[in-house]
């Protein structure tokens, strides 16, 4: 029997790879990032080498985080696909889905050693039910 799940995964992988290639040709790359849940916080770290703090734009909603960071320092990297030519990095851009709903207004961010760390408190909601 044909494995449609495999087909769907492969289709998505090829599409993502193609989009990544197009972005890299334009000098725009998706940064490496990591999401951890520690206690009542979601901690997202994003690797942004070559960026200054002032050039980071960060937006949060209840369930996602968007980062756009201009890279003013000239960083040349080998574009791995199609031609293998060198490209110059212009911008990092990523929209990251969060695993749980958070309170975006209470988020805190810092930038050190080229790594952006964003701490977002987990949204505690719902109506309290009295136990009788």
């Amino acid at each position: 029997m044909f494995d449609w799940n495999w087909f769907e995964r492969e289709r998505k992988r090829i599409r993502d790879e193609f989009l990544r290639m197009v972005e890299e040709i334009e000098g725009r790359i998706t940064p490496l990032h990591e999401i951890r849940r520690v206690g009542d916080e979601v901690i997202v770290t994003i690797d942004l080498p070559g960026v200054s703090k002032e050039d980071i734009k960060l937006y949060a909603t209840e369930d996602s985080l968007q980062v756009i960071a201009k890279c003013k320092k000239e960083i040349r990297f080998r574009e791995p696909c199609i031609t293998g030519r060198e490209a110059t990095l212009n911008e990092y851009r990523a929209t990251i889905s969060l695993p749980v709903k958070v309170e975006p207004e209470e988020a805190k961010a810092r930038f050190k050693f080229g790594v952006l760390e964003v701490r977002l408190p987990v949204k505690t909601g719902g109506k309290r039910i009295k136990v009788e």
Partner: protein
Amino acid sequence: MTNKVKIVEIEKADFKNPVLIEGLPDVGLVGTIATSFIVDSLGLREIAYVDSPLIPPAVQLKHDRIIEPVTIYGNEKVVVLTSFVELPLILLRSIVSEVLDWITKYKPSLMLSIGGIGDPRRIDLEKIGVVGITIDQKIRELIKEVPDVNILNEGVLSGPKAIVIREANKRRLPFLILLSQAFPNYPDPGAAAAVIDVINRLLKLEIDVKPLLEKADEIKVSLRELMKKTISAVAPTQSIRGAPTYIG
């Protein structure tokens, strides 16, 4: 597909009790970054490469030469094993085993394995700690003279370096594992520089890490694909349990 690996010698080796430095891709690509920099800094020659059908299909073109993904470089005193492709744990074991069998005939004085240990507090660290693991009393005494290295006396190590220890111990090779605190999922040239600093003092080398730190941003951008693939390939990343006070 067989995971049999073989060493293909490019030139006749002329080692005299060399130190073998292994830095295959792992946490923060510390070993990969450090060994590549050591190879360039010491001007080491390609001595051999590792061949296996399971090594990801990639070659590096360097002017008029082709560099294999898993290569052994060296001079008469230092031999370096490095890779620019991700290696799954099952293949890593076969590679380490084959390389140790090969180097044993040259009677190595030390097997030095370098890498990273993921630390979620890395962003707070102005000074990066290095942990040393060995069971050899002489090496233990030697490393005591190198400040800033914490010797691990007890604990459970898991991940790629556990394979290295098991294979070295089987052959009764004197080994030392050096792991620096690293960003777990990002290439970490700073952590690689911390390990090289220790190697400098241990082996009386004078490798200047300043160019490595100056090129840190370029290195991080260039290695992000290898980092992603290494995370997938080496799922249980390097960790030490039962000894949290030895680091930091």
